[in-house]
C-alpha cells in the first residue's frame, strides 16, 4: 500500500462516474459517445436481465443497501425501499411512470412564495424531455393528458386499460374528474428491438423482458458499446480534490478484492441518488472543504424531501383482475395538480390509478390491511383479494431545512461514515394528504366500492439534498449540476431538484442529466484542464 493508503492507481480517464443507475448510465453513454474515456464505479453487483426473478421475495435483494443509513424523524423515509444497489440502481425496479414537471413547478418561489425556483424554466428542459422519450421509449396518449405540458407526442400508443382501471375510472367520471392513460416507459408495442409488455405486473421485481426501460436495456449497454467501462462491487469512498480544493482530480475506490485504488479523472460525476450522493460529498471533506465538498453554503445534504404519498384501496362487488397490468398503474388524473386548490395548502397532487397488485409485499394486498391477522386475514385474502382496486396519491411536499442526510460516527466496511436520514413532512403536505385521501375514498365509493381503506402517509421518491440554483449562497450546484465550489465535480440525479412537483421524478432526472451532459461536452475545454 502506498503512503496515501492506496494500493494502486488506475490509468487516468476523462470521466469517472459514481453509480450505474439511471442518470449515471445516461451520463456514461453521452460522454463515451463523444469520445471520452469513461469509467463507471458501481458499489453494488452486476445485474443481468436473466437474474430478475418474478417474485416479490427474491427481488428484495435489488433494493437498498441495508445498514448504510438510519432513517429517523417524524416521517422517516423508506430509504431502502426507494433505492437500489447494483447496475441499474433504483431504476432497475422503478415503476416507469414517466411524467414531465409542469412549468409552474419550476417557479414555486416566484409564483407562490415557497421553496425555491429552479435556475431555469420548463422550456429549457423541454427539448431534453423530447429527446429522451424517443431514446427510452414512452407509451401514452398525449392528447388525452389534458394537463400535459407542451412537448412532442409519445412515440408509442398507450398501454391497455384492464378491468380494474375501468372500474375506478367510473368513480372519477362520477365526480367530474378526468383520467388519461398513464404515460409509461414501458413498450406498448415492440420498440427499438425490445418487446412489448405482456402486462403481468412484475415491474417491481425488475422487468427481464426488456419491455420496461430500465438502464440494463437503455443507456448502460449503449455506454459500453461506446467504450465506457463499468466496474461493479466498486465502492467510491472519497472524491479527491487538488490541494487548493478548486478541482476534483479523481476518486478513491475500494474494489471487490479489497484493494483501495485511485482513479484519476478530468471530470467526476456523482450519480449516487439522493442518499449516497450527499453522503459521499460530505465524506470527502478536506482542509479546503471542511464541511464536505460543495458545502460552502451549508446546504449539502439539507432539504431532502419526498412526495407525500398514500395508497387508497376499495373492495368492489366484481372481480377487478388486479393481477393484470403494470405496477405503476393504468390511468392518471392530474386535475388536482394546480398549486392553489383552495383547500388550505399550496401544491398539487395526482392519482396513479389501478396498480397491478401482488398478494404480498409492502404495497401488496395483504400489506394494505396490516390490521388483519389470523382467521380475519385468511377470510380477507380468500374473499376480498380478487375484488380489490387501488390508486396512489402522489402529493407535493416542500423541502424543509431541518430534513436531510448527515454523517454519523459509525463506519461501514469500507471505512466510510454511515449516514442518518432525517425527515418529516411539512405541514402543508400533511394538509394536502388529508384532503387528497379523503377525496380518494370518495372517488372509490363513487366507483362502486363497498368498503374503502387506505395505507399510511409515506414518502415516495427521494429528492433534493444537493439542490441546484443560481446563487451559491442558497444552492449546492449550478444549473448543470456542477458544484459551485469545485469546477469539475458534477452531481446528477434527483438530488438536484429544488422542488419536485407531484409527479414521479425519473423522466425529469434523466432529461436533466441529458441537458447537463450536453452542456459539459460542448464546454469540455473550459470545464476540464
Amino acid at each position, binding site marked *: 500500500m502506498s503512503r496515501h493508503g492506496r494500493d494502486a492507481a488506475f490509468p487516468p480517464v476523462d470521466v469517472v462516474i459514481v453509480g450505474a443507475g439511471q442518470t449515471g448510465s445516461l451520463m456514461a453513454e453521452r460522454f463515451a459517445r463523444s469520445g471520452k474515456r469513461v469509467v463507471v464505479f458501481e458499489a453494488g453487483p452486476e445485474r443481468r436481465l436473466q437474474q430478475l426473478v418474478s417474485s416479490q421475495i427474491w427481488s428484495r435483494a435489488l433494493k437498498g443497501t441495508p445498514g448504510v443509513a438510519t432513517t429517523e424523524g417524524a416521517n422517516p423515509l423508506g430509504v431502502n425501499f426507494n433505492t437500489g444497489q447494483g447496475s441499474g440502481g433504483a431504476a432497475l425496479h422503478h415503476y416507469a411512470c414517466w411524467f414531465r414537471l409542469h412549468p409552474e413547478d419550476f417557479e414555486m418561489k416566484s409564483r407562490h412564495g415557497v421553496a425555491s425556483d429552479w435556475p431555469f424554466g420548463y422550456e429549457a428542459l423541454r427539448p431534453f424531455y423530447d429527446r429522451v422519450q424517443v431514446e427510452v421509449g414512452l407509451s401514452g396518449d398525449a392528447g388525452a393528458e389534458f394537463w400535459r405540458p407542451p412537448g412532442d407526442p409519445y412515440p408509442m400508443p398507450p398501454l391497455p386499460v384492464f378491468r380494474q382501471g375501468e372500474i375506478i375510472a367510473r368513480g372519477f367520471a362520477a365526480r367530474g374528474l378526468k383520467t388519461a392513460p398513464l404515460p409509461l416507459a414501458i413498450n406498448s408495442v415492440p420498440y427499438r428491438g425490445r418487446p412489448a409488455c405482456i402486462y403481468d405486473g412484475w415491474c417491481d421485481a425488475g422487468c427481464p423482458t426488456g419491455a420496461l426501460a430500465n438502464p440494463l436495456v437503455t443507456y448502460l449497454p449503449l455506454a459500453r458499446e461506446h467504450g465506457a467501462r463499468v466496474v461493479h462491487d466498486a465502492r467510491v469512498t472519497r472524491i479527491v480534490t487538488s490541494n487548493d480544493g478548486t478541482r476534483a482530480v479523481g476518486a478513491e475506490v475500494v474494489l471487490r478484492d479489497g484493494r483501495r485504488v485511485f482513479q484519476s479523472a478530468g471530470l467526476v460525476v456523482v450519480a449516487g441518488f439522493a442518499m449516497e450522493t450527499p453522503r459521499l460529498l460530505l465524506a470527502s471533506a478536506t482542509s479546503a472543504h471542511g464541511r464536505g465538498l460543495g458545502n460552502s453554503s451549508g446546504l449539502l445534504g439539507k432539504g431532502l424531501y419526498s412526495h407525500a404519498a398514500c395508497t387508497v384501496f376499495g373492495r368492489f362487488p366484481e372481480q377487478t383482475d388486479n393481477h393484470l397490468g403494470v405496477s405503476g398503474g393504468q390511468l392518471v388524473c392530474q386535475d388536482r395538480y394546480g398549486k392553489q386548490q383552495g383547500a388550505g395548502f399550496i401544491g398539487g397532487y395526482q392519482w396513479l390509478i389501478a396498480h397491478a397488485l401482488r398478494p404480498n409485499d409492502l404495497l401488496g394486498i395483504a*400489506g394494505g390491511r396490516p390490521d388483519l391477522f389470523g382467521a380475519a386475514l385468511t377470510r380477507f385474502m380468500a374473499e376480498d383479494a380478487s375484488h380489490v382496486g387501488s390508486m396512489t396519491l402522489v402529493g407535493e411536499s416542500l423541502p424543509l431545512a431541518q430534513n436531510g442526510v448527515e454523517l454519523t460516527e459509525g463506519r461501514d466496511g469500507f471505512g466510510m461514515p454511515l449516514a442518518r436520514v432525517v425527515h418529516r413532512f411539512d405541514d402543508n403536505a400533511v394538509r394536502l394528504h388529508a384532503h387528497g385521501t379523503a377525496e380518494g375514498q370518495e372517488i372509490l365509493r363513487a366507483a362502486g366500492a363497498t368498503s374503502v381503506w387506505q395505507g399510511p402517509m409515506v414518502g415516495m421518491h427521494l429528492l433534493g439534498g444537493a439542490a441546484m440554483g443560481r446563487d451559491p449562497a442558497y444552492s449546492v450546484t449550478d444549473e448543470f449540476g456542477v458544484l459551485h465550489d469545485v469546477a469539475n465535480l458534477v452531481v446528477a440525479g434527483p438530488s438536484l431538484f429544488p422542488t419536485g412537483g407531484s409527479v414521479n421524478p425519473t423522466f425529469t432526472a434523466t432529461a436533466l442529466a441529458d441537458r447537463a451532459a450536453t452542456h459539459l461536452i460542448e464546454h469540455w475545454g473550459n470545464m476540464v484542464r
Partner: protein
Amino acid sequence: MRLSPWAAALGVKTARLVVCKVSEILLGAVGLDAPLAWRFVGWGMMNGLGLMKKQQVLGAFDPRRRRVLKHMSLIGAAAVTYREAVAGSRAGLSLDIARLARLSAWAETLVPGAEAAGVANFIAAQLAAPRQSACLTLRYLDWAGDFPDFYRRGLDALERSAMATHGRGFVMLADADRAALAGRVASGSIDGWQGPPAGLFYFAVRSDAVDVVYGTVQGFARLNVPYRAHIAPVRPWPGAWRGRRS
C-alpha cells in the same frame, strides 16, 4: 417402516438426537418434569418417525397435554428448519430451535398456514445470508440494527409477555390467548414489552408469513391468481430447502 419426509431426510439416528434435544429444550422451557417430559420425547420421536398416528396419540392425553403434543410437531418443523437453514447457508444459524418453534407459532397465529408453508425456514435462511442479500421485509423497514437480533429480541419479548400474562410460553398458549396477545402486540402498546417496537415486530413477522403463504407460486395458486412469471423462481425464496416447491 414409513418415515415421515423430514425423518427420512434427516436420518433416523440424527432425527432421534434432534428430537430428544429439542424436546428437552422446549419441555424444560414449559417446566414439565423429566418423566413426563420423556413421554413426550418418546411421542415426538414416534410421531416424527411416523410410527404412531397422531390421532391415537392425541386421544391419550388431556387437553393441556394435547397442546404440548401439538407443538411437538412444531418442534419437528423447527428441527427441519434448523437442518435446512444450516444446509442452505455457509453461515451458522441465528435463531436456536426453541426460538424457531416460537417463531413458527407466532407466524401461524398471524397468518394461518405460515407454519406449513415454511416460515421459519424462510426467515432462518434470510438471517443466515449476508445482510445485503437478505430478502426480508425488514430490509424495507430500514431496521438499522442486526437482523437476527431483531427476531431474537422480539421473540424473547413475546415469550416474556406470554409468561407474564398466562404463566406459560407462547407455544403453549391456546389459540384464543395467542390471538389476544397478537392483538396487543399489533397495537404497539403492550405492557412490559422489551424488544424491538412491538408494532414493528408484528408487522415484520406478519409480512414474512404473508410472503410464504401468499407470495409464492403455491400461494398465488391458493388464491386462484395466475402467477404468470416472466422468470419463475426455482425455489420459493433464496436459501429454501431444495425440497420446497416454489
